[in-house]
């Protein structure tokens, strides 16, 4: 346990960072994020952007599944709504990216509310299936509403722009994606310092008691769906700007499962866990790729084993974390931190 953190005021006690050490570390982290694109090569820059997008989407899903206890298999569909919104707006309007991304989030949130409506009557696994149905319909719309979505061929879009400045390179996109990711994670952190966040957690832990204690279940479940889908929509919009093309195949069901896995591996109901999970799951294929490359000179058929190994590792991570470390990477992180906060005086 930390000592020496007695507070003079409730304001100080309610702050996100309660010690100056924490503040310094966070400042260092921000600085590292800012310096990163100037140091990284194209490949790392690309991975950095991907992780940023994944962090936003995972945080969104964490709000819904991790904090509110509503399992969703529709995350990729909501991202698709965001992606198509951005694509359509960038083709048909001149609006700058903050507006298009906002619309992407809002439209995704609206769709999220629609898909979440059954949560009034069904819960748990039935709800998961309802979200699955939602994503099947969304995929169908993406594929068939050709006049808007371009059908199976999808849409290609212009780079993000803002007051005449265009963001056509990964380097520039980084400065949209990462600050937005930081902001949105902080926003989520704020939510869980207030009544809204407490209501979400209460619904997850004991929904019936929560209702009797004054929480309007439908309202807060839908709010959680809306917020979560908003995050997904923004992530999907960034995805569209980043790849500059969206097709129905850009948002498959496996993507929804990927984000669920990221939440589980990172730690359900833990924002830091969501971030760790997003980064970890995004980087695993790359790490495995490096390993394969290193092995290929000795085992020429290593690449053949890579894709199956990836599936196996993906599955094993889900199963392993659920059985052995249900609190995910976040818990491992906390253990390491606890160790070092007293190190070297312990033992």
């Amino acid at each position, binding site marked *: 346990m930390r000592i020496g953190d007695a507070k003079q005021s409730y304001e100080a006690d309610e702050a996100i960072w309660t010690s100056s050490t924490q503040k310094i570390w966070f400042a260092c982290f921000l600085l590292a994020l800012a310096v990163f694109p100037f140091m990284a*090569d*194209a*490949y790392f*820059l*690309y*991975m950095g952007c*991907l992780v940023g997008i994944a962090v936003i989407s995972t945080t969104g899903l964490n709000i819904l599944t991790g904090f509110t206890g509503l399992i969703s298999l529709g995350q990729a569909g909501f991202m698709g709504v965001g992606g198509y919104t951005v694509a359509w707006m960038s083709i048909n309007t001149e609006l700058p990216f903050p507006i298009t991304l906002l619309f992407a989030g809002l439209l995704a949130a609206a769709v999220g509310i629609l898909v979440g409506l059954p949560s009034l009557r069904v819960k748990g696994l039935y709800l998961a299936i309802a979200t699955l149905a939602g994503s099947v319909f969304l995929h169908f719309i993406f*594929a068939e509403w050709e006049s808007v979505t371009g*059908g*199976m*061929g*999808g849409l*290609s879009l212009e*780079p993000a722009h803002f007051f005449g400045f265009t963001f*056509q*390179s*990964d380097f520039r996109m980084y400065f949209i994606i990462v600050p937005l990711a930081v902001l949105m994670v902080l926003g989520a952190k704020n939510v869980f310092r207030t009544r809204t966040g407490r209501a979400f957690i209460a619904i997850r832990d004991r929904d019936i008691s929560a209702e009797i204690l004054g929480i309007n279940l439908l309202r807060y479940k839908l709010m959680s769906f809306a917020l979560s889908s908003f995050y997904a929509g923004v992530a999907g919009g960034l995805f569209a700007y980043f*790849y*500059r*093309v969206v*097709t*129905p*195949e*850009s948002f498959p069901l496996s993507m929804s499962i990927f984000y669920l896995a990221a939440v589980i591996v990172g730690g359900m109901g833990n924002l830091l866990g969501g971030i760790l999970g997003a980064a970890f799951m995004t980087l695993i*294929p*790359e790490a495995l*790729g490096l390993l*394969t*490359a290193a092995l*290929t*000179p000795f085992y*020429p*058929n290593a*690449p*053949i*084993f*890579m*894709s*199956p190994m*990836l599936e196996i590792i993906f599955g094993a991570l889900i199963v392993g974390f659920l059985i052995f470390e249900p609190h995910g990477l976040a818990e491992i992180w906390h253990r390491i931190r606890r160790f070092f906060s007293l190190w070297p005086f312990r033992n």
Partner: protein
Amino acid sequence: MFKNILSKGRRLAGVGSIAAALVVASPAMAQDKEPIVFGGSIPLSGVFAFAGVHIHAGLTDYTSWINSQGGINGHPVKYVMEDTGYEVDRSVAAFKKITGSNTVPVYYGDSTGFMKTIASELNSRGTTLMSGASFATALTDNEQYPYQFVPGPNYTQMFGIILEYIATQGKDGDMPTVAFVYSDTEFGKDPIENGKAKAAEMGIKVVEEIVTKPGSVDVSAEVLKLRRARPDFVVFHGYVLSPINEFMVQMRQMGLDTQFMGTFWSSDKLIINKMGADADGYMGVMPYNYYDSPESGPMLDALRAQAEKSDPDAGYRPTGYIQGWFNAMVWTEVIKRTMDAGKELTADNMAESLASIKDWDTGGIIGIPVTVHDMSFPVGRIWRVNAKEARYEPVSDWIHLD
């Protein structure tokens, strides 16, 4: 049970040893000139791996062969690739990684999705010309994809070649009827609209149109529809194997004498290997000669010799191998023409060189001289499965669309 691993392992082992030999060989070539890099996002694993491993072998072997010929204008060639698992995001990552540490004038893309995704980056870089596994019609649109081409006819042109063939098969002056069966994917839907227009133009009636999911699906209801429509020809597109086999077997069980045809990726030997006698009579459009076709030519012979040399046990090489080889051949031709014109290897200059290809002799890979139209090689031939011999045999002349 482990037969598959073993056979695959052996196949790749051959590839690997050649790649290792390559590294040793290139400094020994004693050329001071900068190497030219062929980049590639290659699906060695994942759903497209069955073709990807052969594409990889084709590119690798071509690289060895061209280096043995003294490289391109004295520049040695280096082939640098990454496995993608046929996932777009990993393909993009591979592209960034490879172009980040090399100057890459030409690049192999593993899917339409990847090639569309990377287009904007390709256009703003202006350094790299790209072709690959995709024959998507969209990629031959010069406005949107000025630096990408297809190494053969695009899917629409394949349909055109198929329809030209079908038009010659009418009995008693009647045009035959046709049905299109395609998968519910970007790949599957690519040529359908254009194909229908072309058929209408030629007076061929499209009597049925069927969309299915690719892969393992029950198609009995669709077969019943075809039984009602009674098309003379059924053209498959967007499948690798299933459900083509099921359509053919069930329709023949019903006593229909329909002819079945497919496009490039549905015309591999996989169909014969898996379906056996049921594959007999199936027809495919193919712009290249098959590995075991009786034709010959200097380049085709070189390809066979190189394939034999790199892996003597492999025997037959699938269409993916030839496709990979042909891509590299076109790159070489384009680079050579650009260098000969004294120009830099920019994407613009190379695209210009590509467009200048006219009546090009491919040394037997393609049976007739070819001319580039709109970033494609609109040529092909109809081949028919002889199940007894376990191979495709030509049933039409080479058809060159204008």
